[in-house]
């Protein structure tokens, strides 16, 4: 039996294929490893199936083309990797303020600087705290499998439209390059195309002109816009948090990890459990909004948290804010494109447990 919806694909290609199936009308991008497959796949397959695909002169240009096309009412996206995403920050700030829906994919590579093309999570702060100037947020989705590389494209476009907000898929080169089975969901873009009465499509005589802008020169007006954005972000935080909890029912310790690292951490959980350590895993699927409440709740009944990331310790700050000192929070990270092994994570877990025991002993 052949099913057109089930395929064996690379993460980057699954993501690109999902974009076509999600009815993405236009893609603007610039080549950079490890995500060029997205541009290449869309240039070939996307164009064949009616997508507008333009290789821009830079990431600065691509994000501003996204701005124009989204403002013109289209479902649009761009993708890049860390240095290119840095170049897009000004544009993203304008897009967030102008409340333009779009999807931006960051296939995170190791930095800072030109860095390395190996996987990294070094762009967590940039992705979740705004990244460009001013008070704004992107909705940030963190896939951990080729399946989610595809799923989060559909979800990302829907969320972008629902909130008129840019959505970022934050992933890495390993997920982009690995091949896995993926099943594309039934999705008819026609059912997911909201009316956009605000779009610049040419002003008919019977409606006032539409203006896409992020310029509000009166401070009172600018504050009003900010309050509106903040209210939107609160609503997003209340409604759109997504995470996966594994082996947590009887857990005394929790590992928090996202994306590729969460897969490795899950193996570490299995190894630790073989040694009798009762540990579970919390895997945020949305990095913004961050699953703070879930973590706060867990912190009431566990003894410690280990955060594992491919960076110098970024998400761990959000973990600490959620745990609020209830239990110790430790961090283990590798940088520069190095992927931590399950054994390293178990070792880091041992350290957390030993420290915990020592602290408890001190307390008595």
């Amino acid at each position, binding site marked *: 039996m052949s099913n057109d919806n089930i395929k064996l694909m690379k993460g980057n290609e699954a993501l690109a294929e999902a974009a076509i199936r999600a009815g993405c009308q236009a893609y603007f991008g610039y080549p950079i490893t490890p995500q060029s497959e997205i541009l290449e796949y869309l240039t070939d397959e996307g164009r064949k199936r009616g997508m507008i695909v333009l290789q821009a002169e830079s990431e600065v240009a691509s994000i501003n*083309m996204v*701005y124009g096309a989204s*403002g013109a009412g289209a479902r649009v996206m761009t993708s890049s990797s860390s240095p290119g995403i840095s170049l897009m920050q000004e544009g993203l700030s304008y897009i967030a303020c102008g409340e333009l829906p779009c999807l931006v994919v960051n296939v995170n590579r190791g930095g800072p600087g030109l860095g390395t093309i190996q996987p990294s999570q070094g762009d967590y702060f940039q992705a979740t705290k705004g990244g460009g100037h001013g008070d704004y947020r992107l909705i940030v989705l963190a896939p951990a499998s080729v399946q989610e590389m595809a799923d989060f494209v559909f979800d990302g476009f829907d969320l972008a439209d629902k909130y008129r907000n840019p959505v970022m898929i934050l992933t890495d080169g390993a997920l982009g390059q690995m091949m896995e089975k993926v099943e594309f969901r039934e999705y008819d873009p026609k059912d997911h195309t909201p009316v956009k009465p605000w779009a610049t499509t*040419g002003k008919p005589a019977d409606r006032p*002109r539409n*203006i896409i*802008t992020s310029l509000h020169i009166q401070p009172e007006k600018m504050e009003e816009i900010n309050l509106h954005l903040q209210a939107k972000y609160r609503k997003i935080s209340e409604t759109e948090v997504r995470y996966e909890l594994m082996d947590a029912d009887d857990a005394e310790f929790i590992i928090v990890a996202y994306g590729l690292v969460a897969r490795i951490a899950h193996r570490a959980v299995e190894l630790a459990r073989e040694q009798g350590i009762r540990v579970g895993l919390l895997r945020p699927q949305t990095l913004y909004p961050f699953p703070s409440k879930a973590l706060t709740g867990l912190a009431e009944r566990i003894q410690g948290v280990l955060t594992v990331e491919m960076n110098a310790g970024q998400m761990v700050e959000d973990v600490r804010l959620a745990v609020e000192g209830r239990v110790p929070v430790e961090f283990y990270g590798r940088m520069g494109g190095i992927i931590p092994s399950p054994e390293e994570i178990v070792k880091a877990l041992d350290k957390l447990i030993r420290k915990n025991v020592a602290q408890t002993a001190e307390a008595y």
Partner: protein
Amino acid sequence: MSTEILDLIEPEIANMDCVYEKPDTLTDMRLHYCPGCGHGVAHRVLMEVIDELGIAEQTIGVAPVGCSVFAYHYMNIDMQEAAHGRASAVATGIKRIHPDKYVFSYQGDGDLAAIGTAETIHTVNRGENILVVFINNAIYGMTGGQMAPTTLLNMKTTTSPAGRTVETAGFPMKITEMVATLPGAYYVSRNSVHTPNAVRYLKKAITKAFQYQKEKKGTCFIEVVSNCPSGWKMTPLQANKWMEENMFPIYPPGEIKVPK
């Protein structure tokens, strides 16, 4: 204008025959431009052509960062405000989605020939079917009169207080001539708005540009050599005279590239 003066002249105006009207597509909002500035006239001509061609409902404009950042207050059409230098990239995005609509960007010399040079060149090189209106006043008006890529040699600005020198700042950039060398450029013209005759030429150029856009011929690029009385520290009259005497030799008006 103060309200007292308006109170005085409005009854007079009411008794006069109207022989020259504001185009419908120009809003009633009072322009914020300095007295004598060319932006207002350029806005007017652009809207007048749009009205005459009857394309206001099919036209989407892109306003720049610069003195004309509020262009959308005056142009009664759908518009997008772009980040500094990115107007032609934004226009590209719009045009790709609405290939049958008319799209123009409106940009200053800092916007188009400094921070946005790459976007300008590549938009024209792709032959995007848009109109780029380039207002060259040889200075950064909005930020208070700093040197622009088009600032003339020896011209004084706040960042070339003793006059622009080649040693520190290179040469006045003739980006319009550069753009004209690209095959994607279909029609390139340099105009001005300082005399009624000049306005008529500009009007013709813009009309042609929209016609070519309709026929999907490629990028049309119209430079308007303009003034900046405030930045140049001159009266409007002095500014226009100075422009003719000093700008025109470097940036001579006329059609630079016309269809064969």
